[in-house]
């Protein structure tokens, strides 16, 4: 049972539930206490020990259900010829044919996974199948001889529990939980079947089929039918285990890739995934920076506090208290170029900033392509995704005019910029050869605490063509290249560190 529990914890980690070694030990203790007779009880108990947030509890619940659902063979094996009517038999055979097709699919997949060599086997199989089918017809009902191989015995007896146990231990033997990618499913199905004694039975079947006695042949046919049924069950099982053990490995790879990829190249279909990644990154940052910092003004005595605290010492002042200032959360103005070329970057940066609401409650955002407008309200009223979509729709698309945008900014809200404000400008600084109005940027620079310019283009194209970066960067505290989620995370992290 200990093995099982550690395997389960591995599956949990795979489902992004963070489980430490200490918690693993706790889980063992808990299991020792509650035993594993009562499934619901065990689940409740483990759900207190292993997952530690509401989200994790949900993953845990799913994971527990699929991990500890002992693969019940949901259908009976195709029944004894003696017991079923002709019609049912037909149905069974029909199903068997389907199985055959599915099996070929599986084999094909395996062939792709394991390289060459699959082809020959497949054709051989096909031939076998053809012969079998012609033979299937002429055997009527009647007695059947007893199977010799172990697996055969189990199959004929229809011992579902035993079969399930045999399958589970076979899966253990071939290390099914190491399965990584979906192309391995066929491979593992076959390995499990082999570990269960498929080869013995195959030999038996072929012997039986060539045998002269009808009961023997009947048995052979029956065994074959049941073998197909078993194969289907095993495939189900593998599928299930695959979802449990390997599903997220691929996803993690994909996410890792998405963090690095240039944001303008992200395809529409990945938006959802990126969003999740952004939220997760933002959450991490928020947790890191959620404490309000204090700065101690060394040297300035907090007289009332000192007096109060020294009352206990008969008024002898020896425990001194200094003035300290609680630093408020940063006030951030985000000015985003949402013209065609940079719209995607703006999307993700806004998403990032607004996901950090917990630590940066005072974000005001502005969007422009030529005219600038405040979009803060959009974000207050709508969900982040909708707000971004609306902002991009309403203000995006035009040709960029940084000069005009700065003029608008000055007119509308330069007065709100004070020495606690951080301004982030996101844009490629391509001004279409218009007037850059760097003088306004200088005014902003003088008033604010920090002005950060994020440019999605790589540094060496900052001065090429109509880019005004050289002129603008003189009035920035910091200029950064920013074109992937990783950049974004680093920059926002720095931002939180420095502005607080």
């Amino acid at each position, binding site marked *: 049972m200990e093995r099982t529990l550690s395997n389960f914890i591995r599956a949990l980690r795979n489902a992004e539930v963070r489980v*430490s070694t200490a918690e693993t030990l*706790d889980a063992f203790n808990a299991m020792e206490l509650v035993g594993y007779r009562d499934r619901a009880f065990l689940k*409740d*108990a483990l759900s*207190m*020990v292993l997952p*530690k947030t509401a989200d994790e509890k949900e993953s845990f619940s799913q994971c527990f259900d699929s991990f500890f659902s002992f693969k019940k063979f949901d259908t009976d094996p195709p029944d004894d010829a003696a017991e079923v009517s002709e019609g049912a038999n037909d149905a069974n055979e029909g199903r068997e044919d389907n199985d055959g097709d599915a099996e070929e699919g599986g084999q094909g997949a395996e062939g792709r996974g394991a390289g060459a060599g699959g082809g020959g086997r497949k054709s051989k199989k096909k031939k076998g199948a053809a012969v079998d089918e012609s033979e299937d017809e002429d055997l009527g009902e009647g007695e059947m001889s007893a199977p010799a191989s172990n697996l055969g015995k189990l199959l004929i007896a229809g011992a579902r529990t035993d079969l399930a146990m045999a399958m589970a231990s076979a899966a253990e033997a071939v290390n099914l939980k190491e399965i990584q990618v979906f192309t391995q499913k066929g491979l593992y199905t076959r390995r499990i079947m082999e570990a269960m004694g498929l080869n013995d039975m195959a030999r038996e079947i072929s012997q039986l089929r060539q045998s002269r006695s009808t009961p023997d042949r009947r048995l052979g046919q029956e065994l074959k039918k049941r073998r197909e049924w078993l194969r289907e069950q095993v495939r189900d099982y593998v599928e299930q285990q695959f979802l449990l053990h390997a599903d997220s490995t691929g996803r993690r790879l994909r996410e890792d890739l998405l963090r690095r990829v240039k944001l303008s190249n992200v395809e529409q279909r990945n938006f959802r995934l990126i969003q999740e990644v952004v939220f997760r990154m933002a959450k991490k940052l928020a947790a890191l920076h959620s*404490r309000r910092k204090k700065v101690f003004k060394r040297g300035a005595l907090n007289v009332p506090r000192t007096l109060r605290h020294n009352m206990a010492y008969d008024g002898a002042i020896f425990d001194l208290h200094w003035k300290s200032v609680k630093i408020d959360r940063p006030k951030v103005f985000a000015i985003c170029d949402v013209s065609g070329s940079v719209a995607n970057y703006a999307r993700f940066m806004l998403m990032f900033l607004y996901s950090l609401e917990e630590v940066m409650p005072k974000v005001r955002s502005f969007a422009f392509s030529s005219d600038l407008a405040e979009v803060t309200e959009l974000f207050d009223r709508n969900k982040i995704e909708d707000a971004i979509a609306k902002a991009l729709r309403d203000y995006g698309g035009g040709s960029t005019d940084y000069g005009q945008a700065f003029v608008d900014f000055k007119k509308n809200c330069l007065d709100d910029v004070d020495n606690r404000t951080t301004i982030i400008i996101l844009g490629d600084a391509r001004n279409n050869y218009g007037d850059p109005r760097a003088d306004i940027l200088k005014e902003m620079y003088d008033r604010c605490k920090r002005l950060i310019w994020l440019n999605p283009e790589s540094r060496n194209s900052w001065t090429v063509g109509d880019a005004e970066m050289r002129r603008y960067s003189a009035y920035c505290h910091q200029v950064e290249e920013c074109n992937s989620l990783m950049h974004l995370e680093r920059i926002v992290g720095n931002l939180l560190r420095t502005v607080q």
Partner: protein
Amino acid sequence: MPDIQQIASSVESIRKTFEQHRYICSNQIATAVYLAFHLKKPVLIEGPPGVGKTELAKTTATMLGLPLIRLQCYEGLDESKALYEWKYGKQLLYTQVLKETLDEVLQGAKGFKESVSRLHEFGDIFFSEEFIEPRPLLKALKEEHGCVLLIDEVDKSDHEFESLLLEILSDYQVSIPEIGTVKALAEPPLVFLTSNNTREISDALKRRCLHLYIPFPDIDLEQRIIQARVPEILPELRRQLVNFIHELRGLDLKKVPAISETIDWARTLLLLHTDRLDPELVRDTLNVILKFQEDIVNVQAELTTLTSKATKI
């Protein structure tokens, strides 16, 4: 004095005893108490406000007949308020006394060395347990027959305080530099921490605790809770009001009504001698369950539909 071992022998008996104390709970909650008792681990309880997190700790204390020691957390809480403080006044007083009797103490001392060593003994006395003012955490450790320690709203405290808790949570001991390590007496306290999730609790703390999430109860459980808490209310009205509350929880509100509000509402309706919900009545008593004007206005618009949905059989 209730038989603690007997009560804690199974989840079922814990649940039953809770019910006798009018605390109706799901199996999960009872399991948490069971595990906490047997594994000797603290329980971190999370969930929306008003689902009975604090109540759980209180009821456990009454159920087991143990004293409840409560520490309410807030920003700026530090060890001198949570753990211990020196009795400075007493220390000063004793120094004065010592000063006056210094001659007697040093009488007969040969040489400077011996005088100093005699004085040293007094120095140690000033920082002994005699002069310590125990605060809730230390008090809980010193409780002889065990106790229930409730650390309420731990999310309101600072990060530094969380780290302070780690030692007591994992080993049931605290280190006081001048004295050494104080360990829990025979029976370690049963610790409950509650959090409203206003901020993420650190992983280190979570790792040391069992984690119990109490969600809003389902209709059935809530009906039983109302029955236990407001037994005088008519079954039909109880059903209707619980249904109504559940309808409300499905709406997009600033603050959805919690169990405590349901109970308050049930009491209110009882006071008004009503036997069924009708829109007018609900409109007049809406401020018992909704605490934001914005929410009240929103709900009032749909009051008739909601009421008819809730009263439908």
